[in-house]
């Protein structure tokens, strides 16, 4: 009797929260029938699982992998090596040539059967795959007649020459080995001469050169053949011997000598590194001097309309023509082509002329520049695109190529160039500015003033850099002079003069550079002063 029955009997409402009988019923149904057990017997178990011992477990193994291909057959196959001439047959394991696959479809026949047929004869032709590495060394060959005619040498018999050539061939021109194995047993009564490697080389090279020249006359040799010929004929055994002696001495140096050499080498390396940095700096300087100083006008883009800086007269003329063309399209033409006479002048033109005059006055006294914002020009056209350079100047209309991103203070243009990265450099800039009597605070930083200031600051930067270079050069000259002093002390007087001349030239060169530097610097400072004056006015 279950709890539900009890509730039914007592008339209690069914417990909706947990319906266990339903669940239990389900599990009983769900439990799968055990294998090898009658269903009736299994039902006797109720909801509990039967004890393990009653279940016959059928072990399940992993399925055998299905392989489509068969095991590749290998065979202990005989082979012959084409590099041998005795036909020795050795055996090695080799993949058996697969039998032709049965033609299942047309596609497989076309795709697979055809290459297999191709392969077989190809492999037969190829032969043993390592035979190709058998590369014999080429040595000169000669007939007895040729030997008698050209290769005679009082120091060498033909037999010994033959022996040498065989050895060279056998040991692949490895001269150390040839010399080591050289053991000529002379057949005649005169004993075999002891031969050094240089003797052997000299003889072999001579023979090679003569045979080469005999086979191919020098006049008809190709470039590589001739270079080989000249190489063969230029062998110098005496020089080679002395070189070997030097090398031997080098080999037997003591530890102290080795140490000294390594110190000297590192010293040399250091000097070379210094030299190269110096060279780089000088190149940098030359680079700087060759190029014109970038004017600040392009940077501010005051005059720039079309985008590029109009720094040359040709470009300016072009600009004028462009503006003129634009102007012609408009009814109210204010620009006058040079060819147009004064008779064609419209009242507007006259007015513009007057305005131009006024503009020039206004430009002179910038204080009144802002006084007439709504002048006649504003009536003449709704857009400011057609403003003449003069009027755009007047109304401070500026055109920029590109505005730098972000917000920045206009005052930065005045304060930033005064500050350099290092404090020393900042001080130097301050000193130069003080010398030029530029006030700390510039009273009226108009557009033009700022422009002039920027130009000035660029000049100051160049001046400082050139000063630095000049100092370096001076110290260099001092070092050279000191070196010269030491050298001249050590050496004789004859040499000393030479050195002096040399150094003099050197110093002159340096001096010129220096003078150039100074000139430049003064020029810059002059320019700075000029601009300064202009700013003041």
């Amino acid at each position, binding site marked *: 009797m279950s709890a539900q029955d009890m509730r039914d009997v007592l008339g209690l409402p069914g417990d909706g929260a947990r319906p266990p009988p339903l669940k239990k019923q389900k599990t009983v149904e769900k439990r799968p029938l055990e294998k090898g057990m009658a269903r009736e017997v299994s039902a006797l178990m109720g909801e509990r699982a039967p004890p393990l011992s009653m279940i016959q477990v059928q072990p399940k193994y992993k399925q055998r992998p299905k392989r489509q291909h068969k095991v590749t*057959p290998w065979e202990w196959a005989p082979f012959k090596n084409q590099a*041998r001439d005795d*036909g020795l047959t050795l055996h*090695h394991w080799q993949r058996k040539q697969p039998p032709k696959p049965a033609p299942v479809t047309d596609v497989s026949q076309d795709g697979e059967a055809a290459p297999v047929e191709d392969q077989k004869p190809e492999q037969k032709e190829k032969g043993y795959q390592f035979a190709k590495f058998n590369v014999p060394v080429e040595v000169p060959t000669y007939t007895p007649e040729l030997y008698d005619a050209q290769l005679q040498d009082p120091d060498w018999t033909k037999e010994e020459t033959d022996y040498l050539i065989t050895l060279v061939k056998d040991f692949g021109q490895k001269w*150390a080995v040839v010399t080591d194995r050289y053991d000529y047993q002379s057949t005649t009564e005169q004993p075999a001469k002891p031969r050094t490697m240089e003797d052997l080389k000299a003889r072999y090279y001579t023979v090679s050169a003569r045979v080469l020249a005999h086979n191919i006359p020098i006049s008809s040799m190709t470039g590589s053949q001739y270079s080989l010929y000249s190489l063969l004929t230029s062998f110098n055994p005496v020089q080679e011997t002395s070189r070997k002696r030097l090398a031997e001495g080098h080999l037997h140096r003591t530890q102290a000598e*080795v140490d000294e050499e390594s110190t000297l080498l590192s010293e040399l390396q250091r000097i070379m590194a210094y030299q190269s940095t110096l060279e780089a700096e000088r190149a940098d300087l030359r680079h700087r001097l060759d190029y014109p100083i970038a004017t600040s006008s392009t940077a501010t883009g005051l005059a720039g309309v079309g985008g590029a800086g109009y720094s040359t007269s040709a470009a300016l003329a072009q600009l004028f023509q462009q503006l003129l063309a634009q102007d012609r399209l408009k009814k109210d033409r204010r620009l006058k082509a040079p060819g147009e006479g004064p008779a064609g002048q419209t009242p507007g033109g006259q007015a513009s002329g007057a305005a131009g005059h006024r503009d020039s006055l206004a430009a002179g006294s910038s204080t009144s520049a802002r006084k007439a914002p709504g002048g006649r020009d504003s009536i003449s056209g709704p857009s400011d695109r057609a403003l003449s350079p003069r009027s755009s100047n007047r109304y401070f209309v500026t055109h920029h190529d590109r505005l730098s991103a972000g917000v920045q203070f206009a005052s930065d243009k005045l304060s930033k160039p005064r500050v350099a990265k290092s404090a020393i450099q900042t001080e130097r800039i301050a000193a130069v500015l003080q010398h030029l009597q530029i006030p700390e605070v510039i009273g009226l930083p108009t557009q033009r003033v700022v422009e002039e200031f920027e130009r000035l600051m660029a000049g100051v930067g160049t001046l400082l850099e050139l000063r630095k270079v000049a100092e370096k050069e001076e110290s260099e000259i001092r070092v050279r002079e000191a070196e010269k002093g030491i050298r001249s002390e050590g050496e004789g007087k004859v040499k000393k003069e030479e050195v002096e001349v040399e150094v003099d030239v050197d110093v002159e060169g340096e001096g010129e550079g220096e003078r150039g530097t100074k000139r430049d610097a003064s020029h810059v400072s002059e320019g700075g002063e000029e601009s300064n004056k202009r700013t003041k006015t």
Partner: protein
Amino acid sequence: MNSSVPPAAQEYAGDEINALVLDPGSNTIRAGFAGEDTPKSVVPSFYGVPQSSDAQSQYLFGENALHNPLTHMDVRNPYSSDSVVEDWDVASKLWEYSITSRLTGTRPTPAAKNGLNDPAEVKDEDGDMAMEGVEELEKPMAENPLLVSEPAWNPQKAREKTMEIAMEDWGVPAFWMGKTGMLAAFASGKPTALVIDIGANTTSVTPLLDGFVLRKGVQKSNLAGNYISSQIRLQFSQMTPSVPLVPHYMVKSKQPVDAGASSNATYMQFATPPTESYRKLEEERVLTSFKESIVQVWPGPGKLDGASGQIPGQTNADAVKTLPPKPFEMPDGWNQVFGLERFRVVEGLFSPQGALSDAENPVPDAKHTIPAMVQAALNAVDVETRPLLLNNVVLTGGGSLVEKLAERVQAELSALYPNPRVRVHTTSSATDRKYGAWIGGSVLASLGTFHQMWISKKEYEEHGSGIVEKRCKS
């Protein structure tokens, strides 16, 4: 990788043809198949001659037979003190034993012909192959080409004799001989090297250029493993109290005793004790274990008796004395710690002054020490190859396994030649150094490009044994 795909030939340039490699030495004979990394068969070069029985012709080969304490068994060695074969009769049998006992014994049916690998449908085509298998080959090595190593100073007669044995007694289809120095260099992958091979009987220095031995530079001396053993014996006798040397076969049971105390062991009783030569062989085994576990070389710089670099007024020997000594226990339980003594016994390899000597063991010749031999070898070769060789010094041989030997050689050579760069190459693996020459032979004989170098049976029949001089030039 699919195992049915053969490795590309260009990958390792190998082509294995089941060649045999035989590396006979005066202490052990190494044999195996080319292409493997260790010799399968290592047989002692000593052999037993039972004298009591009437079977005079029967020799005892192999470890098991040799170390059995038989009465009246004489232990002999077919090699001279120069590691050159003296007794050809026994040597050939010994070599044959080393190959047939482990490698080619009773001939099994080749795997290709035992029916397991025959595909069903191509049986008809293979019908003639079965006939091939039936063919009887009575010679022991009729199927395997043979590569034999030899010392660099092997006389021409010995080379020809070796070839005759291989071709006529063993029936090899192809044969080649290589110098041990060259093969050892190949094992460490260097065609140009200065090989210092410290064996049992001889230490040799072989300069090698592009695979060719520079014969004029070859040096050899007897200051090798056996010399160290004799130094140890001398050291034992000179110590107070002298060290008793009792081989294993003499000891029945033993009790632990304190260091230096006399042993407490019961000894075997023999009606007729084994021969003196047998006892010597067994003593050598104890000395070998002493060498392997205790002996060390002063690593340099300087000699053991030289002035110390660190502390003025002291020698390196004084520095060694401060090191903790190492204990060694004899088979009968006697044990002792060894300090300076374990350094002293190998010093003779480097300086004659450092060697122990008495009336029977004279001071070694200065030119037989390792640095002197290297110097002599280098002086005999061309100047330009010397730095090359010094940069490729290969140290090999079982004797080189003495601790810190490589460091000492490096230090000695660097002191001799401060200018060129000296580099001593050794493998850390003991097997690679013990079987260096064999491994080189194994590499060489399994190369595809090498198969054109074999001297075939046909060539031998045409030209006779003199062809070995012409063809094996290494």
